[in-house]
């Protein structure tokens, strides 16, 4: 009953040029569509990767980032007496009480941007074992020394080992570079927590992060936390959840803007597909009349032209996605609205993104091909045959 697929495929091959241009149009839109989603997902993945599920981060309620969160020393010591906090064999809590500030640094490729400076406690590296010294040495406790994340070293001028950075009325020496495996900590500068408080004349931390004594102790900890009346203004979250939330604003912004733009673009590609398919129908009117005379049904004609359009857009989608997938090898850096600081991330492809990109392409093909296919199916046999 069906018009053979070879007929459809060979027609696409025969009009190489229009097929090529139409495919390219769809590919371009799908490329941008996929790139935007990959960018948003890249930001998200980087920040999700930053936090651990076994660590808990305490911040002040209603603070919308670490820099606007304040935890005074007294509250900090209350928190550290709560149960379910992992401890070293010597009994010290595996926790880091951290002042977090942003400073301005010059970017290598021009301009100034915000960089997160995190003051950490002794146990910070036990808490986050993924953060490793890459070169140079660790800062000395009690000294105005810093280690820079690998993305900072790459992207900011004057952040190499031996360079001095000025802030809080003092000079700080970069003594090492750390690598966090592509996570958000790569875009931070770390130093001694007490040095930072001292330099900024602060007495309060921003957040406290600690390791749970058991991976599944989170609920028990939260229960204990909520029973403590002096902690009403603070809230715990797993470290992963906390950083993930820092990505949501940015990812949402990229997605909304990107999808808005690509939907406008897609109108162009859809109209392109429509023009191509109308031309195909016009050129093949006699063929359609002949097929119908031979006994092929209207719906077979409809299906053949729709398939042709879907193939066009499907191929376009595949090509666009292929190009977009090569973006995975690129990292970019931009200001993350969630933390008000520069964040380096790479474009990341997920099965969902691949699938939605192809679906997006097929929708363009369907919308563009629908009216022409209906026209082909509605052709009157006698008139179609007379048009030769």
């Amino acid at each position, binding site marked *: *009953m*069906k*018009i*053979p697929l*070879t*007929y459809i495929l*060979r*027609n696409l091959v*025969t009009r190489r040029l229009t097929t090529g241009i139409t495919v390219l149009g769809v590919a371009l839109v799908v490329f941008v569509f996929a790139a935007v989603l990959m960018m948003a997902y890249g930001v998200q993945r980087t920040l999700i990767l930053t936090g651990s599920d076994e660590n808990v981060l305490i911040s002040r309620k209603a603070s919308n980032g670490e820099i606007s969160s304040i935890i005074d020393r007294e509250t900090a010591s209350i928190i550290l007496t709560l149960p379910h906090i992992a401890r070293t064999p010597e009994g010290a809590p595996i926790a880091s009480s951290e002042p977090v500030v942003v400073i301005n640094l010059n970017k290598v490729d021009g301009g100034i941007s915000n960089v997160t400076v995190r003051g950490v406690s002794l146990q910070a590296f036990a808490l986050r074992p993924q953060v490793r010294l890459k070169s140079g040495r660790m800062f000395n406790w009690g000294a105005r020394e810093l280690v820079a994340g690998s993305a900072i070293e790459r992207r900011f001028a004057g952040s190499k080992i031996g360079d001095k950075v000025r802030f809080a009325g003092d000079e700080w020496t970069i003594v090492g570079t750390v690598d966090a495996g592509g996570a958000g900590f790569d875009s931070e500068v770390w130093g001694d927590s007490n040095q930072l408080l001292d330099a900024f004349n602060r007495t309060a931390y921003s957040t406290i992060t600690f390791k749970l004594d058991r991976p599944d102790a989170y609920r028990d900890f939260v229960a204990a936390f909520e029973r403590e009346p002096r902690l009403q203004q603070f809230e715990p979250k797993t470290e992963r959840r906390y950083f993930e939330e820092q990505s949501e604003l940015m990812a949402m912004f990229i997605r909304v803007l990107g999808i808005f733009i690509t939907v406008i673009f897609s109108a162009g590609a859809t109209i392109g597909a429509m023009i191509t398919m109308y031309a195909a129908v016009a050129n093949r009117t*006699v*063929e359609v*009349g*002949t*097929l*119908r*005379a*031979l*006994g*092929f*049904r*209207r719906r077979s004609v409809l299906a053949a032209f729709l398939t042709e359009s879907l193939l066009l857009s499907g191929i376009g989608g595949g090509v666009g996605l292929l190009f977009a997938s090569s973006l995975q090898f690129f990292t970019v850096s931009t200001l993350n609205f969630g933390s008000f600081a520069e964040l380096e991330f790479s474009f990341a492809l997920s099965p969902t993104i691949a699938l939605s990109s192809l679906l997006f392409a097929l929708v363009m093909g369907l919308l563009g091909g629908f009216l022409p296919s209906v026209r082909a199916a509605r052709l009157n*046999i*006698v008139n179609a*045959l007379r048009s*030769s």
Partner: protein
Amino acid sequence: MDPIIRVHSVSKSYWRDSFEIPVLNNISFDVPGGEFLALMGPSGSGKTTLLNLIAGIDRPDKGSLHVAGTDIATLNESRLAKWRSTHIGFIFQFYNLIPVLTAYENVELPLLLTSLSKQERRRHVETALTVVGLQDRMRHYPKQLSGGQEQRVAIARAITTDPTLLVADEPTGDLDKRSADEILTLLDRLNKEFKKTIVMVTHDPRAAEKAHVVRHLDKGEFSQN
């Protein structure tokens, strides 16, 4: 034996804007099985329209059409499509082969509407192409064939389903004399050897010579001569 075609009081008009263009005016005639009928007449006299009605790709305004035992004016569109695929073989002036399909694939096309298996279809296609003498051109595309060869492929396509009736609209109209002769000889052979009933519209008096019966249409009516 009942006639294969029984046209009774058939009228047909076309409308252009609000003008009625009468094309066929109360036409009646029978065609017995095995006949080779030629329809002649000046251009615009309604030959193609009459042929299209008989072949079930157009509908009359009035009258009845019994073809191959079916009252085709009453069939709905999908039954009519099915009916055409089993009873009618089409031969067109400009061959109407599908350019992107090979000779083999063109001939196979109407068989895709049957329940024949791939092997059975192959047998049918090869037989039909052998009858028209093009068994060695199966893999050629229409572009790679001469006009006469294209028309022979089209004839193979028309006979591959073994239809009751062949309808041909000026089958030699686009061919040189030699190719036209080949086509006419072939149609004659299909009529004599394979007992195919043929209705052929033609302008060519030599084509009409091959026919048993010649009918002349003039302004939508049969004229006497």
